[in-house]
C-alpha cells in the first residue's frame, strides 16, 4: 500500500495547520510571562544571588527531557502494538527535541554548579542518570539515521525505546546505589528549604511554557517528517516510473 493512500496523515496535517498557530501564540505568551516573572518579579536567593534564576531554565528542561522520553515510549507502543502510521513519526521527531532538552538541562546545570558547588561536574546520581539519558537519546537518533527504510528503522527504534524505558528505572536505582556507596552526602542537595511561592510561581509558568514549546516543536517536526516521507515516496515512484525494469525491486520497500 502506498504511503499517500493513508488518509490519516493528511487529516493530521490539516489538524496541525489549524492548531499550530494558536499553540505557538500561547507558547510565546507563556514565555513572555514566565521570563518576565523569573527575571523581574522573582526575588534573588539570599545565598545564591542572581544565579538562582538559572533554575527557571534548568528545572523545566530537566522535566521536559523526562516527559519527552515518556512520549517516545507511548509512541513506540503505538508503533509495535497498533501499527499506527503516525506513531513512529512522533517517536522519531521527539528524539532530537528530547536530546536538546537533556543537553540544555546538563549545560545549565553545569553553569549553575560552577558558582554553587565550585565545579562544573560532579558524579552525582541525578547528573549521571541524565547523562546516560542523553547517550540513549543520541544512540536512538543514530539508529534512525543509519537505517535506510523509515518503517524498519521505526520498528527497531521502538524496540530499543521500550527496552530503554524498562531499563531507565533500573539505571536510576543502580546509579543512586553507586553514588551513596562511593561519596555519601558530599553533594549539595536542592531539597533543603521548601520552595517559596515567589519562586514557585515563575517556575510553574516556565514549566508550562516549556511544555508548550515541546508540543509546538514536536508538531512542527512531525509535519516536516511526514512531508519528508512523501517526498521520498514520490522520488521512489518517479524513479521506478522512469526505469520500468527496476520498478518491482524499488517500489516494494517504499510501501
Amino acid at each position, binding site marked *: 500500500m502506498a504511503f499517500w493512500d493513508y488518509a490519516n496523515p493528511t487529516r493530521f496535517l490539516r489538524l496541525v495547520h489549524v492548531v499550530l498557530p494558536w499553540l505557538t501564540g500561547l507558547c510565546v505568551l507563556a514565555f513572555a510571562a514566565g521570563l518576565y516573572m523569573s527575571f523581574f518579579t522573582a526575588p534573588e536567593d539570599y545565598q545564591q544571588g542572581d544565579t538562582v534564576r538559572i533554575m527557571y531554565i534548568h528545572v523545566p528542561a530537566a522535566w521536559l527531557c523526562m516527559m519527552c522520553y515518556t512520549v517516545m515510549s507511548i509512541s513506540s507502543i503505538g508503533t509495535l502494538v497498533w501499527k499506527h502510521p503516525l506513531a513512529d513519526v512522533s517517536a522519531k521527531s521527539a528524539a532530537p527535541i528530547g536530546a536538546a532538552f537533556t543537553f540544555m538541562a546538563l549545560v545549565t546545570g553545569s553553569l549553575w554548579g560552577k558558582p554553587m558547588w565550585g565545579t562544573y561536574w560532579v558524579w552525582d546520581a541525578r547528573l549521571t542518570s541524565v547523562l546516560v539519558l542523553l547517550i*540513549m537519546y543520541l544512540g536512538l537518533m543514530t539508529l534512525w539515521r543509519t537505517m535506510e527504510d523509515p518503517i524498519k528503522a521505526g520498528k527497531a527504534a521502538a524496540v530499543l525505546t521500550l527496552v530503554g524505558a524498562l531499563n531507565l528505572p533500573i539505571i536510576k536505582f543502580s546509579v543512586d546505589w553507586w553514588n551513596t556507596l562511593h561519596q555519601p552526602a558530599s553533594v549539595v542537595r536542592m531539597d533543603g528549604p521548601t520552595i517559596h511561592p515567589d519562586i514557585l510561581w515563575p517556575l510553574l509558568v516556565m514549566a508550562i511554557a516549556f511544555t508548550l514549546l515541546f508540543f509546538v516543536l514536536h508538531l512542527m517536526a512531525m509535519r516536516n517528517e511526514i512531508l519528508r516521507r512523501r517526498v521520498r515516496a514520490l522520488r521512489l515512484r518517479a524513479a521506478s516510473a522512469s526505469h520500468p525494469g527496476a520498478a518491482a525491486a524499488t517500489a516494494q520497500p517504499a510501501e
Partner: protein
Amino acid sequence: MTGWALDLFQRDLKLSVRIGGSALVGVLFFLAVVTVIPFGVGPDLNLLARIGPAILWIGALLATLLGLDRVFQADREDGTLDLMLMAGRPLELVVLIKCLAHWVATGLPLVIAAPLLAIFLNLEPLAMGAVTLTLLAGTPALTLIGAIGASLTVSLRRGGLLLAVLVVPLAIPVLIFGVSAADAAIHDPVPFLTPFLILCALTLIAAVVGPVASAMALRFSAD
C-alpha cells in the same frame, strides 16, 4: 532440553570456537586491556589492587562488546537466520540458546582468565575469588543485553560501533553491581551478598527482556 535446542547449541558452539576462534580473540583482547591500564595509571601495586576489580570488569565489558556483532550476523549472511525465523520454533528460545552458546564460547573464557589476570593486578585470593564469582554471575547479563543491540543492528553493514553505543547505557547497572559486589567482598562495609544478589537478579531480568526484545527486533528486520 529438547533435541533441536541441543543441536542448535552444539552447532553454535562449534562455529564460534572453530571459525575465527572468537573465544581466544576475546580473551586476548581482555589481556590487552588489562595490560594497557597500568601504563595509563602507573605501576603502583596498591592502586592497582584497589581498582583491580573495576579494571577486570571494564575489560570484560569491552571484550564482550567486541564479540557481540557476530551473534546473528554470520547467520544472516549465509541465510541461516531466515530459516530459523521460518522454522516455527519459538524465536525467543532460539535467541536464548544462541546467547547461551555465545556466552559459553566468549564469556566463560573471560571468567576463567580473570583469576590469572587478577595476579597482574596484585589482587588478594579473596578478591580474586569475588571478582571471578561476580563475572560468572554478571557476564551472561552482558551477553543477553548485547543480543538486543546485535539483533537491532543485524541488517547494517557496519553495525559494530553503533551496537556498542546502544548497549553500553543498558549495561551500566550490571557494571555497577558487579564492581560493588567485588569491592564489598574486599573492604567496603556493605555485605557481599546484597549487591551480588541484585547482580543475579539483573541477569535473570536480562534473560527475560533480552530474548523477547531481540526476537521482536529480528522478526522486524526480516520482513
